[in-house]
C-alpha cells in the first residue's frame, strides 16, 4: 500500500511540475508539430503522399520520445538543483519507486504530443487517420508509453553520477530517433546500426503503434515492448544501487 502511495504521489507530482514547465510545453507541444511539418513537407517534396500517415505516427512517437528523454534525463538533475536529491536518497524507500513514476509520467505527457500531431496532420494536411486494428491500437499506445517510460528510468538512473546529464539529453534525441526508425524506416541506415535499435524501446514502441494503425502483425513488437520494459526495470534497479553507493562514497550526490 505504501509503495502504491509513493508511486501515485510521484506520478501526480511530476505531472504537475512538467505541465507547468515552459521547456516541456515546448518539447511536447510545439516541437512535435514542427518535426511533423518538416516530415510532411519532405514527403511531399519526395512525391510520397502515401507515407504521410506513417510519418504522422512517427512524428507523434518522436514527440513522446523527446519528452521522455528530456524529462527523464533531467529527473535527477532537477532534484539535485532543488536540493531534494539527498533527502530522497536518505528516505526509507529505494530510489526505484521514487524515480519510476516520474519517468512514466513523463512518457504519459508525451501522449499529448502524439494526439496533437495526429490531429494536426488530419486538420492541416488532410491525412486519413484510418486505423487498421483499432483494438490493438488501444493496447499498443499504453504499451509504447510504458516501454519508453521504463527506458527513461534507465536513463534517469544512469544520470545520477553524471553531472552533465542535460548535455547528454540534448545529444541523444536525434541519434536514438535515427537508429530506432521512429520517423522513417531503418532500411535506409547502414546494417550495423540495426542491433543498436533492437535494444531500444522506441524501435518496438513505434512498430507496435504503426503495425496496429497501418496493418501488420503487432504481436512481436508488443511482446518486445513488454520484455524490454522488464529488462529495463532490472537494469535500473542494479544501476540505482551501484550509482547510489558510488555517489555516497564519493560524497558527490549534491554537487551540481
Amino acid at each position, binding site marked *: 500500500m505504501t509503495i502504491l502511495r509513493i508511486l501515485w504521489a510521484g506520478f501526480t507530482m511530476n505531472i504537475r511540475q512538467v505541465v507547468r514547465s515552459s521547456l516541456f510545453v515546448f518539447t511536447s507541444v510545439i516541437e512535435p508539430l514542427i518535426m511533423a511539418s518538416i516530415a510532411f513537407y519532405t*514527403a511531399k517534396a519526395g512525391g510520397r503522399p502515401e507515407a504521410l500517415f506513417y510519418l504522422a505516427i512517427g512524428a507523434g512517437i518522436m514527440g513522446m520520445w523527446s519528452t521522455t528523454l528530456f524529462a527523464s534525463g533531467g529527473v535527477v538533475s532537477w532534484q539535485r538543483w532543488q536540493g531534494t536529491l539527498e533527502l530522497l536518497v536518505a528516505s526509507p524507500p529505494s530510489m526505484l519507486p521514487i524515480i519510476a513514476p516520474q519517468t512514466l509520467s513523463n512518457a504519459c505527457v508525451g501522449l499529448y504530443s502524439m494526439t496533437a500531431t495526429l490531429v494536426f496532420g488530419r486538420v492541416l494536411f488532410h491525412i486519413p487517420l484510418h486505423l487498421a486494428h483499432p483494438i490493438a491500437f488501444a493496447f499498443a499506445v499504453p504499451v509504447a508509453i510504458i516501454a519508453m517510460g521504463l527506458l527513461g528510468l534507465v536513463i534517469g538512473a544512469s544520470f545520477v553520477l553524471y553531472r*552533465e546529464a542535460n548535455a547528454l539529453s540534448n545529444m541523444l534525441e*536525434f541519434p536514438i530517433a535515427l537508429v530506432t526508425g521512429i520517423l522513417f524506416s531503418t532500411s535506409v541506415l547502414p546494417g550495423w546500426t540495426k542491433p543498436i535499435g533492437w535494444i531500444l524501446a522506441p524501435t518496438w514502441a513505434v512498430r507496435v503503434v504503426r503495425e496496429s494503425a497501418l496493418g501488420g502483425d503487432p504481436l512481436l513488437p508488443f511482446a518486445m515492448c513488454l520484455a524490454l520494459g522488464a529488462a529495463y526495470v532490472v537494469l535500473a534497479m542494479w544501476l540505482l544501487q551501484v550509482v547510489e553507493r558510488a555517489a555516497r562514497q564519493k560524497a558527490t550526490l549534491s554537487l551540481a
Partner: protein
Amino acid sequence: MRNWLRVFFVGGVIAYRGLFNWLRPAHYFPTMLGGPLFQILFFAYLGRFAGAQSDSFYVVGNAVQISAMAGVFGMSITIGGERWTQTLGPLLATPANRLAIFLGRAVPNFVQGLLVSTFGFFVGRLLLDFHPGLGAVPALALVVLTTTAACTAFGMVVGAFGLRLRDSFLVANPAYFLMLLFCGVNVPLHVLPGWMSAISRVLPLTHGIEAGRDIAGGASLSSVSGLVGTEALIGLCYAVAAYLLLRFFEEESRRRATLDRM
C-alpha cells in the same frame, strides 16, 4: 573610442568566461558537436527515405543552420544569464556604451557558431555524399561567415527578450526550431505554402543557405553575391532591431523596476 573598444573586447571576453563557466568539455562536446552531427545525419536520412533531396542539400542546410545554436541560444544565455547571475542590474547601471556591451558579448557566440558550422560541413564531407570542390571552400566560408553573423544578430533580438521575460528560452526554443522549418533548411522553399516562404525571406539563414547550396553545386561567388548581400542586409536589420529592443526593454525594466526579477 579606447573605452568603447575595451568594453567591446575585454568586456565581451570576461562576460563569456563568466556566463559560460559551466561549458566544460563534457558539456560542450555532446551539446555543440554531438547534437549537430546527429541533426545532419537525421535529416539526410529522412531525405533519403522520402526520396526528396540529395545529401548535399541537407548537409549545407543543416551545417549552416546549426550556427544558430550558438547565435540564438548563446545570446539568450548571454543576456538571460546576466539576470540569473544577478549582474544585469550592476551592468546596466554603468555608463558604458550599450552597443559595445552587447556587441562584445555577441562576438564569442559568433565565433562558436562558425566553429560548429565548420564542424557540420566537415562531418557532412566525411560521412555523407557531400563532396564540393576545394575551390568552393573560400566562397562557402564567406557565406557561412555572413550567415552566422546574421544569425547572431537575430539571436540578439531573441536575447533582448531576456530583459523582459524571466525565461528567454521561451522565445529561443521556438525560434531555433522554427528556423528548421521556415528557412529552407530541410524543405525546399517552393514546397512550403506561400505565407511560409514569404516569412522565410525576412529571416536569417534563408538566403545564406540558398547561396551555400549554389556554391556547393559549382556556382561562383559572384553569381550568388545578391543572396549573400541580402543575408548581410537582413543581419544588419536584425542588429539594429536588437539594439533598439535592448534599449527599449532596458528603459521599461527601469521604469517598472523589473530588471532583477527572477
